């Protein structure tokens, strides 16, 4: 496998990778497979007749990881994939996805990915998805990911969705169904600037007794960027769900935050909190009194907030 300097930097940003990852991996670049490795317990195969892969995690696989980064370094191209993850009963794995775009030209570079997860009984998954865009060109960097999660009984999934700077337009859709005694945690971190737009639409159905979900979103909107955050929890039985979205708004940005709770059972316990506010002047002053410039102080506060 040949990685150039841009590839390496993108990989490091989106997947904390320094070169080739440990464990199973599938690296996709500009619409083609660049490199793949299956392991004894984690098998990666191409889908028949359509772009995308099936990732099969054998039941009982513990402490293993899969990296499936996508790199886009060409202008004027739209990459579309459909990936399926079947995580076997009782396993415990880390899945790192993410898309890094380096758009050198004036055409748009777009990646639209659908990730479907079937997390079998009692399995645990930590899923990390980072988006990042850069490039000297004027072309837009566009990402439209869709994540579909099914948690079987007693399963647990933690989704970490991160997009910090660089992506001009994104529309993220996350849909989940949570089974009996299963738990889903979604934490989202978003920073937009310039004239970027980002939408995130999350819907979680708590369908079986003792299902639970937490959606924790933090975002910062700078310059004249715009964000829409919509999170909807549906509780149809004895279940628990909580949505918390917290945003810092700056300059002439716009943020819409719309938590939604739908209960069709008196046993459903659903709560939400949402807050949008400016950066705290007191915090800036304190950090300046410790020797930081105003800009450094603001950056420090934002970095901490989005950590």
């Amino acid at each position: 496998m040949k990685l150039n300097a841009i590839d390496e930097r993108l990989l490091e940003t989106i997947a904390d990778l320094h070169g080739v990852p440990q464990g199973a991996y599938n690296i996709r670049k500009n619409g083609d497979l660049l490199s793949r490795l299956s392991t004894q317990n984690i098998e990666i195969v191409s889908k028949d007749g359509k772009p995308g892969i099936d990732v099969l995690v054998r039941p009982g696989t513990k402490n293993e990881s899969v990296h499936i980064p996508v790199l886009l370094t060409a202008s004027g191209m739209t990459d579309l994939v459909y990936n399926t993850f079947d995580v076997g009963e009782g396993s415990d794995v880390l899945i790192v996805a993410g898309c890094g775009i380096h758009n050198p030209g004036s055409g748009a570079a777009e990646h639209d990915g659908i990730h479907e997860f079937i997390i079998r009984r009692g399995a645990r998954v930590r899923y990390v998805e980072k988006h990042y865009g850069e490039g000297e060109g004027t072309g837009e960097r566009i990402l439209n990911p869709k994540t579909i999660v099914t948690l079987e009984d007693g399963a647990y999934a933690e989704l970490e969705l991160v997009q910090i700077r660089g992506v001009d337009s994104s529309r993220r859709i996350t849909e989940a169904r949570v089974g009996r005694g299963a738990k889903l945690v979604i934490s989202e971190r978003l920073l937009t600037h310039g004239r970027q737009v980002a939408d995130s639409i999350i819907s979680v159905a708590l369908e079986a007794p003792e299902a639970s979900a937490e959606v924790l979103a933090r975002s910062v909107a700078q310059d004249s960027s715009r964000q829409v955050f919509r999170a909807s929890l549906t509780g149809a039985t004895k279940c628990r769900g909580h949505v918390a979205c917290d945003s810092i708004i700056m300059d002439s940005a716009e943020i819409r935050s719309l938590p939604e709770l739908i209960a069709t059972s008196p046993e459903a316990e659903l709560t939400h909190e949402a807050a949008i506010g400016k950066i705290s002047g007191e915090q800036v002053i304190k950090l300046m009194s410790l020797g930081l410039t105003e800009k450094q102080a603001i950056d420090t506060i934002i970095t901490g907030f989005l950590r």
Partner: protein
Amino acid sequence: MLRIDKVTVSGDNGSGEKVEILDNVSASFDSGKMYAITGPNGGGKTSLAKLIMGIYRPSSGRILMDDRDITDSNITDRAMMGIGYAFQNPVRFRGLRVRDLLNIAAGQEMGGTRTSHRENMERFLRVVGLCPRDYAEREADGRLSGGELKRLEIAMMLARDPRIAIYDEPEAGVDLWTFERLLEVITNRQKNKKDGITIVITHNERFLKASDEILLMSDGRIQQQGDADEIWPMIRDDVACRWRASCGGELDEAECYR
């Protein structure tokens, strides 16, 4: 030397009327000395500290540090010149850990991992009685108790190690044992710093007595300044301040609770 020369700071009282928060204040602080500022609540002590740190800007007057006019320099510049201020009400930070704040205070990159940085950071925590193992990784957010946060505020001052250190009620909210420690740390630090100036805003007798000089502030003015042993009895018995602190002599209401 730090000199405040005929400074007035104005604000508004919330209903649009202009008020003088500091009213033609002059004071000077010599290197090598520890000063205590006391006086009734609302007298202008915190405002004077904010003026020195550059947080409040004067509408008239000058601030001089070693004869250099620093009236127009901003907060960052003053921090860089060696002025430090430990807030009366410390600020909470979500997302920043105790060790991040100490590293920033010490002028080191956030998240810096060099061993020397870590050892330093841990030392400052231990000095204020916060065990590094329990506190270094905690967020400096709403979950720290009032006294813990106050101790962190003082640890940041020690990490910063400024030439002019202003502590705003370091005793407020800290437990008896930590108080003893802070009193000792703050006074010893000044003793070991020949060109340093320590200013402690306080309502505590022990801090007043440990200082070289005391300033009494009320109504946005410095009413008295002098050697601690001379001035302490006068301040304790100050009729005007007692009158102010008891709402113009209306003690009847308080008597109901006897």
